[in-house]
């Protein structure tokens, strides 16, 4: 499809421009989609503020959580047609590299990211179309389906957290990702403690099922405040970071009981590091792990969670915002106002 479209382009930190650019041209195994919903993500905010280490090159379209309609399709595509309502994620493993052969698909050496949801149209590369794209059932709105990618990441995070029924789980951070962790931890039968600095967000946390909330800005020692809620103050069974702040990573580690699983999920700024008490790690037999991105299995699980309505997707979307107001939406996220914004054209 020849022509121009409106898009938000990332040029550098705090330099995002609303421009008219060419509609992407598609190859024989690709599809062109008219974006119906694009959701703001914490990583878009990070990109806006400081750039992104892997996903975004300078002067390029960005945004990666979306749903829309196929408007043009390559001649080799046989599993989708023009008019299909679809949601897709932003990458697909190659299935060829060493890590894919180990079935560690999120570590694939050849993950190529598909960005450009903050635009009128987006192109879906052939391999994503073949293996990581889903048709949205009629009863599900575009903006609900657009939650597919972040939810897939969090399903991955939950499955790596070793949560057992009735475990005490702390989720540090009640942004979009933290709130998804709360909802999914509840589905696992856990008791959930939500820690955040904002009362507004802690209200959301309760709404998504948090059993306890702690406003860290009102506590002199948030680690002690978390441990206080556990039997004999021994600490939680599972501690998750969903903030991406190194100091919070350190506190997350300290919140666990002996033998706890610590999931440091939130990605921190590059060049940062954390301190871990070696005696604590050794004698408490902590399992400390990083979890990144999603795999096609978790994408399917997330899709099923959305379509079966086990996750109340609508609650994650605070308001609709037009594409030209993207920067305002990201700024609102930065001020911890609302959860996600639905960007529409």
């Amino acid at each position: 499809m020849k022509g121009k479209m409106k898009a938000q382009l990332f040029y550098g930190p705090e330099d995002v421009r609303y421009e008219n650019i060419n509609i992407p041209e598609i190859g024989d195994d690709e599809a062109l989609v008219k974006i119906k919903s694009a959701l703001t993500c914490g990583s878009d905010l990070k990109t806006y503020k400081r750039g992104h280490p892997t996903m975004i090159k300078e002067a390029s379209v960005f945004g990666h959580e979306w749903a829309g309609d196929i408007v043009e399709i390559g001649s080799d595509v046989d599993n989708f047609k023009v008019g299909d309502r679809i949601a897709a994620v932003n990458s697909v493993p190659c299935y060829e590299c060493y890590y894919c052969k180990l079935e560690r698909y999120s570590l694939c050496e050849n993950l190529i990211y598909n960005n450009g949801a903050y635009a009128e149209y987006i192109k879906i590369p052939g391999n994503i179309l073949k293996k990581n794209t889903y048709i949205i059932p009629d009863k599900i709105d575009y903006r609900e389906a657009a939650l597919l990618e972040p939810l897939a990441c969090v399903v991955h995070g939950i499955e790596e957290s070793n949560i057992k029924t009735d475990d005490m789980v702390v989720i540090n951070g009640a942004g979009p990702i933290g709130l998804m962790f709360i909802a999914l931890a509840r589905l696992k039968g856990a008791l959930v403690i939500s820690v955040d600095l904002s009362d507004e967000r802690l209200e959301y946390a309760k709404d998504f099922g948090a059993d306890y909330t702690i406003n860290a800005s009102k506590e002199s020692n948030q680690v002690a405040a978390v441990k206080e809620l556990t039997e004999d103050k021994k600490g939680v069974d599972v501690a998750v970071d969903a903030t991406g702040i190194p100091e919070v990573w350190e506190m997350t580690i300290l919140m666990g009981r002996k033998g706890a699983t610590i999931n440091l999920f939130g990605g921190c700024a590059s060049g940062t590091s954390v301190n871990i008490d070696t005696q604590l790690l050794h004698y408490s037999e902590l399992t400390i792990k990083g979890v990144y991105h999603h795999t096609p299995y978790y994408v399917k699980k997330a899709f099923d969670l959305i379509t079966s309505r086990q996750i109340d997707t609508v609650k994650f979307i605070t308001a609709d915002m037009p594409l030209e107001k993207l920067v305002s939406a990201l700024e609102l996220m930065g001020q911890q106002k609302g959860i996600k914004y639905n960007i529409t054209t």
Partner: protein
Amino acid sequence: MKALICYNQNEFKLEEIDRPEIQKDEMLIEMIYTSLCGSDIIKILDPEVKKPAVFGHEVVGRVVKVGKNITRFNLGDVVVAAHHIPCYRCHYCLHGNHSMCRHFKETNIYPGSFCQYIRLSKEHIRYTTFKIPPDSNLLEALFVEPLACCIRAVDRVTFRKDDIFSVVGTGVIGMLFIQLIKLSGGRVVAIELDNDRLSMARFLGADCTINPSNQNIAREIKNITDIGVDIAYSP
């Protein structure tokens, strides 16, 4: 090219058939070695399997023709290829049960490996074809595909050092199992009707052997472990 055509279980003919054509994403290999798998025998004996056909899928070959889009392989490379390819999209693939995938079951090398030249598809080249270092023993390389099946089966059971395995049947797969179990620190009781195979099983590391044609399996097992083996394989 020459191909061994199976007309029925008692009739095979070595015939001239057309050498496979290749497209831009495919390549042609010349068979160097091929081997007969138990599953080939099952297909040959099964009246439901369509014949005439060229069977065989365990193959070591030399690349003799490459499509113009092929970059990872060159003329003269010696390769092994596994014949089935998962779709990586269906329920089974997403759950890691790739061998249950319908696409996996339907894909194959063409026309089979009991012939001179074999076509490898784009998917074979991408996912299941591996170069063999030129100084390796090419006959040994024939075992890549069957050994992969056995490794998968061993990976699927949980066991500890010195756990006792029974391996019932010591054909090629049983013999591979015996070696894998020994490598992983287990102990092996090999059970087999053929005494020559049992000597081979002992040579490959089996700790005990039982020939049910003249020994009572239950009693013999009881002599080794009165509570039964930890893991039983019946390849």
